[in-house]
């Protein structure tokens, strides 16, 4: 057993453990954090496959952005655990069949002749990123652009569906605030300080008298 195999099994065990805890953890925030752990160890496995671009972008996009927003929402919600767990036994057979199907598919794919054997080892100066970029912008440019447009449409649709402005909500008008000049808010008055002080003294003297 060489070093790479040991690292693989460590990451694989970590991924399976974290993934199990995602669905068994009682606290939704803990579950989300276990999902983060699963992503990180998955990135480790991809790194072993020499897919450094995918590994790092998994951490960058999913762990660094998506899961942060996910946690953001989960932390703010008051989740009723009893309600979430309701119907667990009723849906278990369906879930088990689905899980079995996925395991079968994976074994089938991994066993087929196309994927047998490990990945081809490359020299140290081989850049996975460059290769991926070349493929995306030449051979797969249309699928790539279409996928991007579909994502954009989904984003616009989500915003259009949820963005309802309340009529009685108060908010600042930012362009007006930005357009404000110093002269609009501040008036400088010229006055000689000596005179002012003298007047003040005089008035107090009058009061004293």
């Amino acid at each position, binding site marked *: 057993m060489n070093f790479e195999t040991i690292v693989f099994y460590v990451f694989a065990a970590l991924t399976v453990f974290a993934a199990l805890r995602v669905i068994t953890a009682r606290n939704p*925030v*803990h579950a989300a954090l276990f999902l983060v752990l699963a992503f990180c160890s998955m990135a480790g496995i991809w790194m072993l496959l020499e897919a450094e671009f995918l590994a790092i972008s998994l*951490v960058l996009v999913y762990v660094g952005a998506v899961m942060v*927003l996910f946690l953001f929402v989960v932390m703010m919600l008051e989740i009723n655990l009893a309600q979430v767990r309701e119907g667990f036994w009723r849906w278990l057979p369906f879930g088990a069949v689905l899980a079995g199907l996925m395991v079968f598919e994976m074994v089938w794919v991994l066993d087929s002749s196309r994927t047998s054997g490990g990945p081809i080892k490359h020299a140290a100066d081989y850049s996975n*990123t460059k290769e991926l970029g070349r493929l995306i912008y030449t051979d797969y440019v249309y699928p790539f652009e279409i996928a991007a447009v579909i994502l954009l449409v989904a984003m616009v649709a989500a915003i259009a569906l949820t963005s309802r402005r309340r009529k009685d909500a108060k908010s600042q008008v930012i362009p007006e605030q930005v357009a404000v000049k110093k002269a609009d808010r501040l008036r400088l008055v010229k006055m000689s300080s000596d005179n002012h002080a003298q007047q003040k003294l005089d008035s107090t003297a009058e009061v004293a008298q």
Partner: protein
Amino acid sequence: MMELLQILQQAGQNLFGSAWLPIWTLVKIMAIILPILGAVAYLTLAERKVIGYMQIRIGPNRVGPFGLLQPIADGMKLFFKEIIVPTGSSKFLFVLAPIMALAPALAAWAVVPFNDKMALADLNAGLLYLLAMTSLGVYGIIIAGWASNSKYAFLGAVRSAAQIVSYEIAMGFALVCVLMASQSMNLGDIVHGQHGRFGMLNWYLLPLFPMFLVYLISGVAETNRAPFDMAEGESEIVAGFHVEYSGMTFALFFLAEYANMILIAFLTSIMFLGGWLSPVPFLPDSFVWLLGKVSFILLLFLWFRATFPRYRYDQLMRLGWKVFIPITIIWVVVVAAWMQTPYWMW
């Protein structure tokens, strides 16, 4: 110097055999981390001194000559303070949070090159790795805010999460410009791309000047420093995400913030100010230049804090989403078009 290193390598090889490689790597890691921690300690003193002088005060001057032992006294105080875990908090996460804040801040140093040959890992995807590591730092803050079981801490964490996610996009696009100009994601190659006959005119500072500003300001926002310290905001939410932390757990957050500042200063110097390259052609390139540039950027960080009032939250979000992101996207297109013309000289 090189010969001495070679003799050391040879001796280690003979003594430890195949275990020598990990040991030697550990030695190198230590050689990077210990100076960083020292720099962090003295950056806190520099901050108090510099802001003191800017506000016509003296700053700390009691402990040691010119207050030079102040950081050590502060460290001792924090070390001996009790760590109080609040009731109703999630204990494991409460302790994990400061570690999660500091670990990425130190891990990012693995790919930072210090001169032509000195870098712990000469990664091809160094820039991506850095982006990933800096984006992980937010977990320390979020977990701290949630695990503390306190409103103020939670508000600080939520503010910080939104802020970091927003500014990361602008930061990423600024880096896209850098990697277009240098055609590489290796930090060493990025510095080499800025080498030329005209000294500082060859730096990416010139063609990517808007990106330099965006990167620097987003860097201030990413490290939660004033004027973007909404996550702490002591006038609104006491101390934000670390309000419940004391002793060493608090000290770790403090270390993480300053280590991140130094990291951003190094990265800005490497990507826009030519790293270790000399600003004038007739002087040799050296690590000293890099230190000088980093010190200048760090001074800017302290200067910002002494000068600007804290941003209002909606204005902070507006700056990130409506000003920086459009500017960076436009500049990506400008650079791409510029590089196709003969007027691109970098």
